[in-house]
Each structure stands twice: as C-alpha cells, then as structure tokens.
C-alpha cells in the first residue's frame, strides 16, 4: 500500500506502523461520573466495518507523525490522510 503523507507525499506502507481505530483519539474525561464505563468502551469496544474506516498509522521509519488514514477495509483504497494532531484538535482535544 501507499500512504499519501500530508507533509511528505506518497510513502510505502512498510514505513508505517498500524495501531487501529482512530476513535482512540477520543479518550474520555477521567473525572466524569461515568469514567469507568467510558474508558471501558473506549478501550474495548470497536466498530469493525467492511468499508471505510478511519485508522491510526505511525510513520515510524519516517517523520514520526501519527496519521489518520481513511481506508476502505475491503478494497484498501485510501481516500484521505490527515495529521492525527490536526484531527485531534478538530475533535476538540487540547492539553
């Protein structure tokens, strides 16, 4: 596979390490009333779509960016690649 890195252009997938569902960005609030339940769901419950999937890839043999790659799990087609940091900010994460 080839991942079109937003900063570096097309790079071979062998330069990357895969982590999984980009929902891992949405880490719950530790002080919430429902924190125990929220973290359980965050840690263990994942969608397993046959189709489009936002997932986290780490450019380990490259610039060490975490990326959110939108990949079709059936065809391996990649429709979008973004810096995970930008995605995290867009989803409201900060410090």
């Amino acid at each position, binding site marked *: *596979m*080839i991942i079109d890195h937003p900063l570096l252009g097309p790079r071979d997938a062998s330069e990357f390490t895969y982590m999984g569902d980009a929902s891992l*960005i949405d880490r719950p609030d530790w002080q919430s009333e429902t924190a*125990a339940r929220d973290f359980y769901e965050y*840690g263990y419950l994942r969608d397993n779509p046959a189709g489009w999937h936002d997932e986290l890839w780490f450019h380990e043999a490259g610039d*060490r960016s975490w990326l959110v790659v939108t990949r079709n799990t059936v*065809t*391996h087609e990649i429709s979008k690649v973004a810096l995970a*940091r930008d995605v995290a900010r867009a989803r409201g994460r900060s410090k």
Partner: protein
Amino acid sequence: MTQKNRFETGGQIDRESLHKFTFDGKSYTGHAGDTLASALLANGVRLMGRSFKYHRPRGVLTAGSEEPNALVELRGGARQEPNTRATTIELYDRLFAKSQNRLGSLKFDLLAINDRLSNFLTAGFYYKTFMWPAAFWEKLYEPIIRHAAGLGSLSLKEDPDVYDKGFLHCDLLIIGAGPSGLAAALTAGRAGADVILADEDFRMGGRLNSESYALGDMSGADWAAATVAELASLPNVRLMARTTVIGAFDHGIYGAVERVSDHLREPQPDKPRQILWRIYTKRTILAAGATERPIAFDNNDRPGIMLASALRTYANRFAVAADKRVAIFTNNDDGHRTATDLQAQGIKIAAVVDVRADAPRSADYEVLHGEVVDTKGRLGLTFAELKLTDGSSRTLECGALGMSGGWNPNVHMTCHQRGRPTWNADLAAFVPGEALPAGMTVAGAALGDLSTAGALSGGVKAAQSALDLSGQGPDLPQAEDAPINIKPFWYVEGCSRAWLDPQNDVTVKDVKLSHQEGFRSVEHLKRYTTLGMATDQGKTSNMGGLAIMAEFAGKTIPEVGTTIFRPPYTPTAIGAFGGRHRGQEFHPKRLTPSHAWAEERGAVFVEAGNWLRAQWFPLPGETTWRESVDREVLATRGSAGVCDVTTLGKVDVQGTDAAEFLNKIYCNGFAKLAVGKTRYGLMLREDGIAMDDGTAARLADDHFVVTTTTANALPVYRHMEFVRQCLFPDMDVQLISTTEAWAQYAVAGPNSRKVLEKIVDQDISDEAFPFMACANITVCGGLRARLFRISFSGELAYEIAVPTAYGDALIRRIMDEGAEFDITPYGTEALGVMRIEKGHAAGNELNGTTTAQNLGMGRMVSKKKDSIGSVLSEREGLNTDTDLRQIGIKPVDPSASVPAGAHLMKLTGPISAAEDQGYVTSACYSPNLGHAIALGFLQNGSERMGERIRLVSPLTGVETEVEIVSAHFIDPEGDRLRA
C-alpha cells in the same frame, strides 16, 4: 549425439553454439535458444516424468510456464532445484537434470503399480480409506504416504546463491511482450513515458516467436526482434526479459521475479540468482496472452500428446518435430493452423480430427469429423483410436497428437484484487471482468482478442488510453485477423480414464464422483479432487473441470462460477522472498560503542532486541558461565563493576509542558520533581496493565531524560508520540529518541564513586551529588556528559553518558582509572543476578499481564491526576484481595534449584492447574547468599512472608519446598544505595 528430430533449418536457436547436457545420466546436445524440453524433444526424448499419484509416464504438455507434466530436478548438490519445468528451463552448457517422482528408473517406475490400483485411488481416497483405525494414521499410513507421494526432493543443503530485492518506479508497466505488449510499449515508449516491459520468457515476442505467419513483409519473430531493438534504444524503456510479474498488489504495486542467473550453470561472482522487484507504477497494461486448453479423452496423458499450439511452438521456434507423424484433435480453427504449419515443415499429418460438422476442409491433409476416443503406447503415444460421426472407427498411427480445445485468456492478474472474470460465449472462455486492479488495462489475447491484428491494435489503444495520448500511434503491420470459430467441447465420453489435470491425476471420473458425493461448489471440487493444485495451479485444467462440473449439475458454466487466482502467477522460490534477510542478516545487528572493547576481552554476546550485548566476560581458567557470572557479581558488590547500558531506550522530553506530559505517561507524579533529581516511573497501558518502567531525570525545568527498557524502546517512544500528538495536541512538548546518541555505562559498587571521581570534572561527593541526583557534567577535562546516581544493582552506583563517538574511549578510561579498585566489567547475566537479588522488576515481571498492584507498586498510581491507565487500573477485577503479588522465593534446601516458569502450590495435594497459586518469573543463583533465589507472583503474596509452599515444574521434573520471603534479598533498607 544426434538431434534426430531437429529440422535442418529455421527456428530461433543458435546452431553455432552446441550445448551438451545430461538428463537422467544420458548425454545429449542442444543449442542456445533451446529450452530443456525442446532440446529433449529434438533428441527424441518424449518421456520426461511420472505423474503424482498413479506414476503414469508423462511428457511435455505445453511449451510454457503452464506446464503440468515435465517437472524435473535441475542441477545437483546444494543447487538442486525440484519441480522446475523443462519447458521454461533455458538450456545452458553442461546442464544437469533428473526426472523425479519415480522409484527405480523413469522407464520402469516401481510405483507404477498405483496405476493398476486406480479404481481404489479415486478422489477422496485418502479421506475415506485412512480413517480407521485412528491410531494407524500417524504411525503407519502417513509415513507410507509421505514417502510415496510428493514431487521432487530438496537438497537439504544451504542455498549457496544470493537473492536480492529491488524497487522500480514507472509510468506504465506492461506485463507480457507478445504482439499487444510490444505494440503498447512502442506507443508508450515513443511518447516518452517511463515504461517497464516485463516478460517471463528469455526471448521477447510471445506467440510471435511461435507462429509462421507474417507481419507486413516480415516474419512475426523478426518484427518482434526489430521492435525489441527499437525499444532497447529508448532510454525511457526498461526491458525485463526472464521476469515474471507474480502479483498485482494494492495501489499500483506489482511483484516481479527477475531470474538473473537461472540460465547459467551458476551465477557469476557478485550476481544474485534472482531479484524480487517491487514495481510502483501509475498504470499497467496486462498483455499476458492466452493459454490453450486440452480436451479430455481416454488415455490422453501419454508422452507425445500435447497442446496443438505447443507442437507449433516446438516446430516454428525451436525447429523441432515432436514426431514425424502427428495427428490433431480440435474443436476450433486454430488446430488446423497447427496442421498447416507442421506440414510445411515436412511432418506427416496423420489426420485432423475435428468435432465440428462444419470443419474447414483441406487439400493438404485429411480432416475427419469425429472424436479421439482412446490412445495406445506404454511409454509414449503410438496409436490414436477414433470414433467418427458416421459411426465408423479408425486407428491412426502417430507419435504425437495435438489437442486444441480453445484458448483461455490469462486473466490471473485481473483477479488479484478480488476481480472476477466473466464468461464470453463466443470464445467459450472467461475474460477479464469489470473490476480490475486500479490503473490496469487489459489488451490482446488476455482480453479475449485472439487475432494478431486485434492484439496489435489493442496494445496501441491500451497504451493511448493509459497515458492519455492522442493521435494515430505507431504504424502497424498487416497481420492475420481470423476468428477461431470454436465449438465448446470439453471431454469425450469414455469408459476408462480421461485426464483433466495430469499433474494431480484428476480425471473426468473424479469430477463426476465428487459431484455425486455432493461437492457442488468449485472450491470444494478443487479440494476434494486436488484439481488445479500444485505447481501449475490448474492453468490448463481448471476450465475443463468447471465445464464438466457444470454439465453434471445441469447448469451453465457462469452459473457454476469460476475459481479466481491468487499470487504468485508461477511458483516462486522462497529465497526470492527472503532476499538477503537470512542467517545473520535476518534482522539488523546493532552494536554498542563498547562492542570492540568487549570483543577484545573475549565477551560472550547475547541478542537483546537487535542489539548484541555482552552476556559475561570469561577469564582464562573459567570453564562455566556461572563461574564468570558469580565472579562479576561478587567483584561488583565487593568493589566496583562496569556494564554497558547504552541499549536502554532514551527519550529526550523538552518543552514548558514537559513535566505535565510525564504526569500523563507515568502513573506516578512528576510535576514536583526538582531539577537535578531523578525518579523511578511506572508506565501503564490504558487498560491498567503495566507497560514499561524506567527513570526520568529532570535536567532543567523544561527538560527531562526518560529511559525505557531495551526491548520496549520503540513501542514506548511510539506510545509517547501517540499521547503527545493524538491525545494532548496542544501541549508544548517535543520528543526525540536519543538512544543512539549517548553511550551509557553503569558504574556500580562501593568504590564506584572513587573511580568516577578520577574521571568526572565536578564534585560528586554524597553531599554534592546524593542518591537520585542527575546533572549535565563534563569528564576528562571538558567533554560534555551526563551523570545519574541511580542503581539497578542495589549498590552505590552511577550511570554516566557521553556522546556515542566517545563511548569506546570512556569505557577504556573507566577501566584504566578503575584498575586500582580491580574494577570488573560485567554482562547482562550479572546485571540480572544483581537485580533479582535486589528485587527489581524487569521484563519477566512486566510481562503484559501484571498490574501496579501485582508488582507491589499499587500505591504509586496517583489518584490525584489523569494518567494513562489510571482509570481502568481501578477496575474491580484487578483489585481483589487474593490478587497476585510480587514475592521473593528461596528453597528450604539450599542446594535445590528453582527454575523460572515453575508454579507454586500447597505443600500437599494434587499438582494441577486448579491448585495453582502463582508462578516464578525470574530465578538465578545468588553468589552472595550461596543458594538459588527467585522472584515470582503469589496470590495474596505480600501477606504470606515466611510461609512454606511447594514449587513444581513438571516440565523440568522439579518439585521442591520453598519459603516465601521479601523480594529484597540484599540490603532491604537501601543503605548501600545511599552510601
């Protein structure tokens, strides 16, 4: 040494070069340009192998990589290679090959008895027969079957040759250099595109080399040669002959194996045998041609019976007659072309047997309307029995019989991304479906365009559309443009055995049987009968099997479905996939800066991650590793020792939020750590399980140095970047791994300060530099360095780091300055003994199942802040009173051993998993205590000090009584650390 079946003239062989070769010990000659198969046929050798199951005599069926029969063991010694196809082996001088799958000689194979037993050895034979008694399978049946079955044999020696891997990029990859591929390459090459043209053959041209017809005023082969010459002159075109594209992978990546040296007796020095190329291309044209298919009739597997197109290839390309008298059995016009070509070479056509009532007539040879129903000839064809439509029978005397059942487009590569071919009734064949791999266009016979003119113009159009070119393209020569007029015909009704898959000995009967027994899907048919398995993957047989299955099921072929194809296109050597990654080069080898010094001292090394670390340093006279390790431990605890700890992961953490960041990744607090101090930190995974531990040293308000364990350096760094980028993107913090940037040594023992005082430029007295202090310092009069007063051994100890380039100099200086204190280098074993004596957890304890609670560090998990893993570490299930706790273990009998991995059970009662109370994680002999000691986990262990319990290791046969003690065997108060 005559080549009795070679024509006087013609063919694309170099008659000037005479290659001698041996097959089954007999010597023959051939020419450059021959394959082993063509050279054997030229010498009148038809018998080349034995079939897999029945050990039937077999000759070539084809003239290409689809060959199921003529599999040989090529070369000898360590280079012996089983299951190579005689039809693709390029002849070289002194080639050496043997037939395979025989017991005795090829002519008198003792296992041919299986052929007499064929009524029993039908599809599913093994499944049905060897079911009972069950115990017989492993002891009796399997060894016998394994001995008798299988194809060639391996040399069992190490492959002496080198395999390489390479990467190529292009605008357009063209797979196949037949008429369509060459036309496409010419179009794209002249337009200036970066083109790679790959073909599995050693001579480009595809069928053009095998046919007699003209392209304009040239022969097909000459046109191909002229086109290849022009392409070779274009700098933007890379011609890759002897290169099989084996698969179409994601995003325009193709795998290709280039056989650099397979056509030589042995590779030239410094040349690889093969190269596995990874080709990155924007667009691809699949011009892989088509494969002719046989017709099934009784005893259609005798040497001499082959595809009609193969007969033509041997005659036209190799100037070889398969025999002087040849018959043809066809269901389409292409079979007649073979008859015409052979007749032109002076071969007697016994007859063309055509199943079509409207078969074309010929003045030159006899055309019979009917079927071939049987053949004769024990080791090779002698007669063909015919049944004609008018009811009469005929016997034809012939030494070769060409079968022409139509052509299957080579759609394999179109299926590699789950594409499914579609049925074309006019061709009675599958053609590429709609869903092709992204960027792929198909042209020529692979698309079902079976005429030469169609292939040429199709190639041009494919290149134009792939590259968005306009205009006419190259001028194409006049070429034949005849339809093949096929009448689908798959098998002749018979009473004996009609072969579909000669390699796996699958007959029409087997397909029928499988249908009767309820195997209705193509996939089941394949697995039950073994149709289409092994080296040829059914290139000549799958279609027939499918058609016959459809007939039995009363369905059409497209209703029954099709099998699709997976990479690789042809068998590929494991060596090519391995490349240079074998033996010591399997993974990278990392050496620490003290490696040369350690080698000089005779260190024994151990692999840790990719690193080589000194395990111990034997001295003359020491005969066991334990002697060396005990000495290193005692010397360190007695005076001073030094150990290379460069391999520990080091991460520089900088920024105004650095302390806050460490608060997130460690379960314990770091915000209040003073500058100049170091603290132990435990990292949890988000699920609350311990991930790694290490230290963080605060060198400045906004600057920490974090260490990780050697094995986790990479994953911990990855995790830290995840936390930084994905969870807290606005923290002002930067990370960089500096593991390779600093050489670091642990200097331990009561005299360690005295040694370092001679090296460090600053005051490092206990007052100036107390336990857990850290600082940027200088050594040896000005070299920048870092000093940490931390201890893994439990002794007064320091870790000192200098830039990597000075690592070798520093270790030598430490040894020199430490000589007066008998400083002793120690390796990872002594390091391990000392940390077990001190009760420090390491990888064996942080094993992916243990929590901070288990490790006795539950109180470290801060409840006052958010850190990774803190919420889930409070889960009820991880916090029961009977949880495992880390404990120390010592044997009641001081001479007893306590193996790691042993389990802990009550003193009496059964030894069973139900009785399991805990287990041993780390164990060693403590030279300080004089007996074995161990660390482990025990249910409620922290409340059970002094209790006696049984340690059992059924694996090593140990059962011994042990006492539960504190994990801190040495200096539990920590006085030595703070000395």
